[in-house]
């Protein structure tokens, strides 16, 4: 029996605690806020896909909020976060302005595995796109071919495509106001010809982040197209307590039984590690 807490060696969650200064606040797309923090140690330490626990000062809140870094610029000491306002904590964060301090703990967890030569398709649903600017930049820097498939409710909810320099961006919206009308997952079945033939042969890597229904639809599509789930990496989003492996609160169903901890084995995990049949009921039903 494999249990997450059996691990005895030091966890990946060795990130430090620090205070970053907000140097820029903007609205990159409808309903979302982007904060740019100056915190050189974090900007230097983060790997694409890792997250931070941000302390929030909203009344009666207590836990930190986990957010993947959207991007980092180690030379400038900057790190960006893109999030939408869903509750008291994110509302408080969204009201931080230039010159204010934020208490951050991280980087935490495991990022995406960016090694390899194969073309990469990034599938982003809704706010899941927030993790990808830095990921795409790192992939392009490694010389990999990158296609970004981004889906959102409407045109105004899309992160502008110029945030993915060097990648081909394809869009889907629920209302058809930009790109394909329908699910971003459908775009996977309509890739440009050079890639289309490689999809079913494990000739591509897929990195994805988005709402649970989108992720499960993507897994279903992958199975239909005979894409091995080991070629798909998912940035998981689960409720989280500590972010450092002690509260055991961020469980996700593990393939083969039991649970893995999003903050320790994730947030970025290969899709074959997850028991997808249990995901919808756990997090969305």
């Amino acid at each position, binding site marked *: *029996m494999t*249990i*997450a*807490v*059996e*691990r*005895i*060696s*030091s*966890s990946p*969650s*060795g*990130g*430090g*605690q620090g205070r970053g200064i907000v140097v820029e606040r903007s609205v990159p797309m409808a309903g979302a806020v982007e904060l740019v923090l100056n915190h050189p140690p974090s900007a230097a330490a983060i790997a694409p896909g890792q997250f931070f626990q941000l*302390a929030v000062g909203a009344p*009666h*809140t*207590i*836990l*930190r909020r986990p957010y993947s870094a959207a991007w980092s610029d180690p030379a400038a000491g900057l790190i960006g976060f893109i999030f939408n306002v869903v509750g008291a904590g994110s509302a408080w964060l969204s009201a931080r302005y230039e010159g204010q301090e934020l208490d951050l*703990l991280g980087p935490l967890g495991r990022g995406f595995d960016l090694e390899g030569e194969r073309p990469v398709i990034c599938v982003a649903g809704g706010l899941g796109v927030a993790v990808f600017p830095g990921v795409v930049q790192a992939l392009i820097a490694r010389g990999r071919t990158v296609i970004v498939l981004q889906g959102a409710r409407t045109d105004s909810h899309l992160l502008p495509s110029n945030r993915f320099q060097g990648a081909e961006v394809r869009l889907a919206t629920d209302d058809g106001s930009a790109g394909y009308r329908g699910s971003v997952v459908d775009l996977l079945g309509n890739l440009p010809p050079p890639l289309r033939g490689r999809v079913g042969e494990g000739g591509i890597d897929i990195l994805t982040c988005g709402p649970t229904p989108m992720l499960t639809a993507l897994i279903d599509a992958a199975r239909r197209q005979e894409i091995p789930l080991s070629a798909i990496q998912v940035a998981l989003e*689960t*409720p*989280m*307590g*500590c*972010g*450092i*492996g*002690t*509260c*055991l*609160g*961020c*469980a*996700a*169903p593990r393939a083969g*039984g*039991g*649970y893995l901890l999003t903050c320790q084995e994730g947030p970025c995990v290969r899709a074959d590690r997850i028991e997808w049949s*249990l995901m919808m009921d*756990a*997090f*969305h*039903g």
Partner: protein
Amino acid sequence: MPSMAERPDLTVDLGRGLHLRSPVMVASGTFGYGFDAPQVDRASLGAIVSKGTTLRPREGNAPIRIAETPSGMLNAIGLQNPGVDHVARVYAPAWATWDVPVIVNVAGDSVDEYVAVARRLDRVAGIAGLELNISCPNVQSGLQFGVDPALAAEVTRAVRATTDLPLIVKLTPNVTDIVAVARAVQDAGADAVSAINTYVGMAIDVRRRRPIISRASGGLSGPAIKPLALHAVWQVATEVRIPVIGVGGIMTPSDALEFLLAGAAAVQLGTVNYVRPQAAAEIHDGIAAYLVEHDLPDMRELPIRTASVLTHV
């Protein structure tokens, strides 16, 4: 910060040879088995209390396991743990090399299970003591050990007969009379009690129209329960002879001092470990500074004398 010359004595004697260098402990379930959370400064800790440990490995509950509530959080982890054999074989040898004692929190479904876990940990190097978690469902009777003084005494007595390790019993607040349970486990051989475990509570997702926690209910912790925990400690400390360890929503040095003034010999930090890794060090230093400020050499004079309080009301 007190100078070396006037550094007060922060040591605690929990009985049966369990001496702590600091009154600040970390509560079970909030610090794993001590191998995670490298951000926390171990030097300020008097002891680490491990995750609840059962005879066999447990996978824990299905997600969602936690929910934030006003000034608190609910959890229903489901005793996810690797089982006592793994703890004794793999973790204890590492603990034996640490300078902070590790107390194993013991959970079970039956008296036999508690006894079996205690037996496996008895005389194992690296195990400084046991903390009995008696607020888990008793599958045999459908009751909880911790809500019935007789059952609480039975499991305490059985474990006491199994091992000479220092034995702490962690009391549940989900009872009518916590003092009765405290007295019962004292008389059954407990060396100390920790008060309290979490309060049972729940939260509902109105959009999904279902409880947020997959098991519907969970244990409430955090500042929301601090006044309740403080009152429980006050009641218990007044009525038992053995040391009381105060637990429940402690976030600051002032919070910890409230528990010490209420009669606790030591405190455990729980939810705050998730939020401010530096809390243990701050609270340790804050207690020391308070003793210096009040010209107290140690913590023995801290508990408020009940009689003097009563004469003032």
